[in-house]
């Protein structure tokens, strides 16, 4: 005898009617891509006087449509298995532009450097930026460099801004998912987050897990070419993981989402690291996969196109959108029951119980 809490569709309203003065400080969790971050943005965006902001936006309508996106990179360690802050800064923004169904055409790059950083490290990162940009075919055309005093920043932060041109036929957005759409995932989840976590002091473990950081704009171009208007939503599930990305889409599109636990591609080492630390692979960050909502009749075509590229070779169907439990993601579990898949709340913390 239950019915949904009127408030529960909006976790912010449900749980945060009047922030305690004590809580009026930014927590690390406010940057982790989950509910806390959503609360922070709900507080800040109205102050900008604009509607809710996405990871990227169309800034010139008409033909062609021009897309703009910006992102800052503060990852520690700066060099990790599979990449570094430089390649991540290129891929992150290239992918944000691509998720609008756009072809990225140029990047800007800004450094904030802490006094005392070894120059050699700055050179290495810069070379990595150049390599990644070349591999993407997206030039870095402008930039900025600032140096701050020791202690005012942690070594090095990068900000990249990307401009892109929308692909002909593309009309994707987080609010376009339709009941009946099939949910496609381009590759395995959890690799980036686990590779970063494995280096944390106090949690450290050894593994061969490498970050999946990679550009996805060619995959997007292939998908739009195969599916055009039938590709409704594209999203790269970075911070907050697949669970948070799907919850945002469910809310933005007012649909329900159904997942099959048995179809989720979780690599063995990611699963093992998550078991040891008590984390949910669905909440772990990714930097090299995307999730797509595609009209059922086009899904097979789009999936085949994805699998022709290396970055989509392991693409698969993981679920569908439905016209029930709007705003919620529900997963059919291994034993055949169903559970709600929540957003990450704040910072991801290892559990012992």
């Amino acid at each position, binding site marked *: 005898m239950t019915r949904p809490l009127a408030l529960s569709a909006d976790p912010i309203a449900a749980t945060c009617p009047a922030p305690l003065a004590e809580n009026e400080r930014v927590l690390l969790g406010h940057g982790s891509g989950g509910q806390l971050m959503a609360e922070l943005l709900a507080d800040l965006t109205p102050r900008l006087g604009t509607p809710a902001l996405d990871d990227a936006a169309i800034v010139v309508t008409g033909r062609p449509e021009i897309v703009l996106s910006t992102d800052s990179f503060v990852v520690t360690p700066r060099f990790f298995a599979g990449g570094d802050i430089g390649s991540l800064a290129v891929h992150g923004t290239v992918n944000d532009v691509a998720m609008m169904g756009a072809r990225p055409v140029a990047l800007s790059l800004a450094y904030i450097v802490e006094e005392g950083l070894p120059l050699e490290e700055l050179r290495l990162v810069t070379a990595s930026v150049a390599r990644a940009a070349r591999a993407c075919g997206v030039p870095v055309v402008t930039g900025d460099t600032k140096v701050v005093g020791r202690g005012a920043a942690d070594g090095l932060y990068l900000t990249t801004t990307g401009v892109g041109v929308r692909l002909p036929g593309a009309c994707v957005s987080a609010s376009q998912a339709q009941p009946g759409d099939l949910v496609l995932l381009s590759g395995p989840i959890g690799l980036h987050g686990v590779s970063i976590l494995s280096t944390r002091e106090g949690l450290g*473990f050894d*593994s061969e*897990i490498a970050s999946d950081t990679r550009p996805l704009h060619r995959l997007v171009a292939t998908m739009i070419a195969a599916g055009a208007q039938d590709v409704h939503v594209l999203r790269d599930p970075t911070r907050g993981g697949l669970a948070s990305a799907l919850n945002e889409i469910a809310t933005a599109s007012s649909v329900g989402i159904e997942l099959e636990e048995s179809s989720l591609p979780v690599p063995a080492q990611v*699963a*093992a690291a998550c078991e*040891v630390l008590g984390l949910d692979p669905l909440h772990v960050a990714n930097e090299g996969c995307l999730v797509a909502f595609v009209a059922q009749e086009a899904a097979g075509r789009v999936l085949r196109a994805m699998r022709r590229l290396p970055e989509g070779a392991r693409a698969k169907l993981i679920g569908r959108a439905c016209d029930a439990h709007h705003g919620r993601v529900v997963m059919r579990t291994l034993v*055949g029951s169903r559970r709600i898949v929540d957003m990450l709340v704040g910072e991801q913390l290892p559990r*012992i*119980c």
Partner: protein
Amino acid sequence: MCLGVPGRIVGPGLVDFDGVRRDVCLEFTPEARIGDYVIVHVGFAISIVDAAEAERTLAILRSIPGGLDEVSG
């Protein structure tokens, strides 16, 4: 409080969990040998997995007749 994960001892104080390796204190399982599986909780092996018992449990479960395998969720 009970997050305990089975892993295989691969060296002195080193346990492998499907390719993820970590230092583990083996002082509570002095009879454990390399190759044994142990249950690890907060960096300590608290129990050696009894392979024969594990197999026996599974054999009992597998012997349950299939019958109506499909039950509605």
